[in-house]
């Protein structure tokens, strides 16, 4: 079966349809390369705007997910979901900061222990709160006490809750969820 991307005629057809003001390049199932070629050949401003909007809307969910990871709740804020944005910021920030104040263990990126790697992934999932851990935990971890051990779970829980928020923001941005 022939790939439409290899067919110069498909590119011509896509360009011709976008000249007419349509969004054929995206809807016909041709690849991004074809879209770029079609965009370059578009002369009418409204058609060019429509095609640009389609390409931007395809990358927007990923950008929302990245911002939601880095700053908990910010993805929902961009999507105008105020309550969820506030809820995730409070929940993730609260869990992480309380965990640090309990002197929980913050896992470093380089670990030979598989559990250490999993711990790092969970901790780093809380985004900016992982980066500011040293601000709240100046004395370092103390897992010899029960509260230090609980703090480790609080910090990991913050990352896991933030990942749930990232997935939710991604789904909302894609239009699969309200």
């Amino acid at each position: 079966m022939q790939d439409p991307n290899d067919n110069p005629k498909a590119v011509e057809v896509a360009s011709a349809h976008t000249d007419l003001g349509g969004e054929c390049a995206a809807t016909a199932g041709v690849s991004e390369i074809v879209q770029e070629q079609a965009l370059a050949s578009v002369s009418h401003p409204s058609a060019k705007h429509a095609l640009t909007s389609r390409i931007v809307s395809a990358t927007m969910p990923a950008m929302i997910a990245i911002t939601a990871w880095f700053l908990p709740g910010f993805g929902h804020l961009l999507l105008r979901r105020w309550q969820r944005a506030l809820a995730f910021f409070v929940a993730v920030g609260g869990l992480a900061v309380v965990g640090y104040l309990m002197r929980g263990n913050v896992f470093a990126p380089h670990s030979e222990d598989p559990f250490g790697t999993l711990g790092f992934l969970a901790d780093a999932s809380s985004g900016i709160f992982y980066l500011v851990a040293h601000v709240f935990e100046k004395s370092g971890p103390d897992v010899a006490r029960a509260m230090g051990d609980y703090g480790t779970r609080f910090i990991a829980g913050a990352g896991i809750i933030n990942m749930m928020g990232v997935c939710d923001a991604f789904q909302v941005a894609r239009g699969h969820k309200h």
Partner: protein
Amino acid sequence: MAFAHLHHFPAMLIFAALISIALGSLARRTTKRRIEYVLWTFVMFIAVSVAVAWLMYPFSR
């Protein structure tokens, strides 16, 4: 720091409250339903934790 010397029960209350807020905002769409769900989740967190603690009590010594 006060948080470093928390007892187990207050630590559990904080954990349950924060997790309940996140789950409530995800699981329900209206403000009223979210508040109800947050309260329900929080109460269930505490109730199940205390129940499991009592179930484990005979094996603790």
